[in-house]
């Protein structure tokens, strides 16, 4: 059932009796933009998206002030970064599965999907560590190093928080009774995961290909 | 244009009155630091623009206040109990709507006038004629100014500190750099300000048409002594200026008086030479103001003190007493050494 259908149905569940509007029959939760949690997540995404955008702007601002770029080192090595990009993209599949299972309120699938997502997060955190070893610059070498480390640091923070947050959620769905609210949580956290992965793509392009082309 | 001039003149009159009625006219004699007393084309064009803007804004402001007060005065009084008139929710109020739209149109037009005035002034500021300009490289330091007068012949360049001399009627091109933090060079009587930013170079062009001593001051907060980072611009007739330039190009003369000679010794053997230079004496420190022609200046310590023996002695002994936080350390010299040193510095015309 789509959000629109659900909304339409909700309207029929409200009855007017004289001065009173009876809402007792309304559902006690809703998915997607019906739930207030969706709006919080969207707000956070807007804020963090702005941070990423500004950080990228800073990258190119500094680049425009420098004759050579990277200033005194080789560009970051491609292999780990590229590998991680692929891992993140593939992780969208179990993520999407978790989202749909949650909206179908299918506990078993939700649990399985979340476990797989956890495995993926372990994987990309490990590879991210390797990425840092292959950046070919230190943050205190020069402005180039500083901004590269800042971009990577920003995104890694999101990976960490998101991994931790889905870890907590996974333990929840295994240990706690699953009510509708919990399914909404799963679906929202899946939406946030999309954000974390999709913001990586421009960052990957900037950090790894910025010093090579453009 | 004519209208603008006329308007400018009326507002100028009004403003002049305002200026009179506030007490405490500058007691600095010739010195003045005042955007309302332009002494050159740059400043005076800005002043015209300001008077025009002031005129328009005052008119609009007055109009709004009148409408507002009138509205208050004519509207009937009510109380919390008065039933609210909600017709506005159901039907369009044509008359007020028309008035608002007209007022809005008028404001938009006036804003456009201001935009045009601003841009045109900006253009004419940029079009100052720069033929046979004086080139000065100004460098800002915490908390003083150094200036190098350029010349094709390296031998003819010279450096001064905290006091510039410029010829009346000749354009000046200042190349602006900073040695540490961001400063801003501002001589209100002559031109608007320009920031001196580390890692960047800026230029400021101006011309003085009236002779006089114009005070300038750092306008960007730059640390402990931001308040005492002033400098003087002496605008003087060509002949006088050339004479000054000739003097500046000379190295400092070795004094004849025995006491001054002793002072010279004190200077060269003490810590002074670590920071200060005196042309011809061998002292070449670059961290503090160049003292080659110190005695020719009217102020000490970037406009903080009058340049006389007493203040010089006091300054050398305990600069922090006058400019807390200054980079110049204090030197407690034996009294006669100090007096000798002051005497020597006094000879550096």
């Amino acid at each position, binding site marked *: 059932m789509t959000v629109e259908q659900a909304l339409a149905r909700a309207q029929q569940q409200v009855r007017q009796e004289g001065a009173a509007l009876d809402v007792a029959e309304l559902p006690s939760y809703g998915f997607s933009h019906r739930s207030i949690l969706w709006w919080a997540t969207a707000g956070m995404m807007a804020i963090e998206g702005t941070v990423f955008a500004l950080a990228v702007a800073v990258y190119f601002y500094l680049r425009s002030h420098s004759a050579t770029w990277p200033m005194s080192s080789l560009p970051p090595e491609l292999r780990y970064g590229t590998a991680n990009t692929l891992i993140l993209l593939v992780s969208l599949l179990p993520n999407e599965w978790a989202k749909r299972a949650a909206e179908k309120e299918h506990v078993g699938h939700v649990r399985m999907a979340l476990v797989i997502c956890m495995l993926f997060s372990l994987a990309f955190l490990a590879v991210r560590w390797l990425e840092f070893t292959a950046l070919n610059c230190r943050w205190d070498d020069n402005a180039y190093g500083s901004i590269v480390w800042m971009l990577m640091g920003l995104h890694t923070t999101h990976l960490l928080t998101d991994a931790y947050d889905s870890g907590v959620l996974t333990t929840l769905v295994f240990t706690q009774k699953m009510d509708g609210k919990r399914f909404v949580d799963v679906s929202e956290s899946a939406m946030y995961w999309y954000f974390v992965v999709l913001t990586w793509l421009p960052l990957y392009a900037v950090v790894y290909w910025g010093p090579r082309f453009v | 244009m004519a209208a603008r001039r006329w308007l400018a003149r009326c507002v100028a009159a009004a403003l002049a009155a305002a200026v009179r009625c506030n007490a405490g006219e500058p007691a600095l004699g010739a010195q003045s630091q005042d955007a309302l007393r332009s002494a050159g084309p740059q400043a005076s064009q800005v002043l015209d623009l300001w008077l025009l803007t002031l005129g328009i804004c005052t008119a609009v402001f007055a109009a709004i206040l009148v409408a507002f007060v009138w509205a208050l005065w004519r509207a009937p009084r009510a109380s919390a109990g008065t039933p609210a008139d909600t017709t506005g929710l159901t039907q369009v109020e044509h008359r007020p709507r028309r008035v608002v739209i007209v007022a809005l149109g008028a404001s938009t037009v006036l804003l456009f006038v201001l935009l045009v005035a601003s841009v045109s002034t900006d253009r004419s500021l940029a079009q100052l004629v720069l033929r046979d300009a004086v080139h000065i490289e100004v460098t800002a330091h915490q908390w003083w100014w150094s200036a190098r007068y350029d010349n094709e012949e390296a031998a003819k360049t010279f450096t001064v500190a905290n006091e510039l001399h410029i010829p009346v009627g000749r354009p000046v091109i200042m190349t602006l750099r900073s040695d540490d933090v961001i400063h801003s060079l501002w001589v209100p009587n002559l031109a608007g300000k320009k920031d001196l930013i*580390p890692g960047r170079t800026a230029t400021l062009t101006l011309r003085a048409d009236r002779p006089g001593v114009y005070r300038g001051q750092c306008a960007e907060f730059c640390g402990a002594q931001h308040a005492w980072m002033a400098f003087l611009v002496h605008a003087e007739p060509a002949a006088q200026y050339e004479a000054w330039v000739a003097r500046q190009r000379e190295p400092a003369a070795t004094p004849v008086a025995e006491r001054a000679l002793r002072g010279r010794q004190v200077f060269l053997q003490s810590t002074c030479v*670590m920071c200060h230079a005196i042309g011809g004496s061998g002292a070449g420190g670059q*961290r503090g103001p160049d003292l080659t022609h110190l005695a020719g200046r009217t102020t000490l310590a970037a406009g903080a003190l009058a340049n006389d023996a007493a203040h010089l002695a006091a300054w050398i002994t305990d600069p922090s007493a006058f400019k807390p936080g200054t980079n110049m350390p204090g030197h407690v010299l034996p009294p006669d050494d100090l007096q000798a040193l002051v005497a020597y510095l006094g000879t550096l015309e």
Partner: protein
Amino acid sequence: MMRIVCLLALCLASLTACEREQRRYNAPASPASPASDAGLSRMGPFQPGPAASAASGASSSAPIASAASAPASAASTSLPPTSANPHEENAVAVAEGKRVYRWYNCNGCHATGGGSLGPALMDDEWLYGHEPQQIVATILQGRPNGMPAFAARIPEDQVWKIAAYVRSMSGQLRSDVAPSRSDGLSAGPPEQRRDKETPKPAAPGKDH
């Protein structure tokens, strides 16, 4: 109630003041110097009030004097090598040390601590001792093989500040006092991020 607790915290806090942050704007000039008196007596119309100097001098010269005289005595009478340098607690003083280290061209020989003509200052080797007043003595009196004596050239208070900075180069100072990176070419990790070297005297006969 919450607010009361915090107020108490504030009051307690205000009793202590942070030595690291002290800006000591009064030079070690003796207030009773004839020159400054002369200055005080004849002031023109637009000087910053001599009252200022008198007042501030009077109010805050006492602690300053002590702070300044401590190093002075330490230098003249050779105290045991444990004598401390009060500037090593004060970030502003160390920063000034770093500035004049550059201004007086110490980096001409010692570079930014790596050393070139002169020995390195950021390592654990100390030819003439790592104690503050040993370093001060080195600067004031000079050392064989090229280290000039600066006794007449650099005011003693600044020498003590330079000494404090020199020790920060090998991580001898607290990291919240030691300087951070300067606005210049990068010279490796900033002083406040360096690991503390444990000073050892140089191998006998070893020289630069």
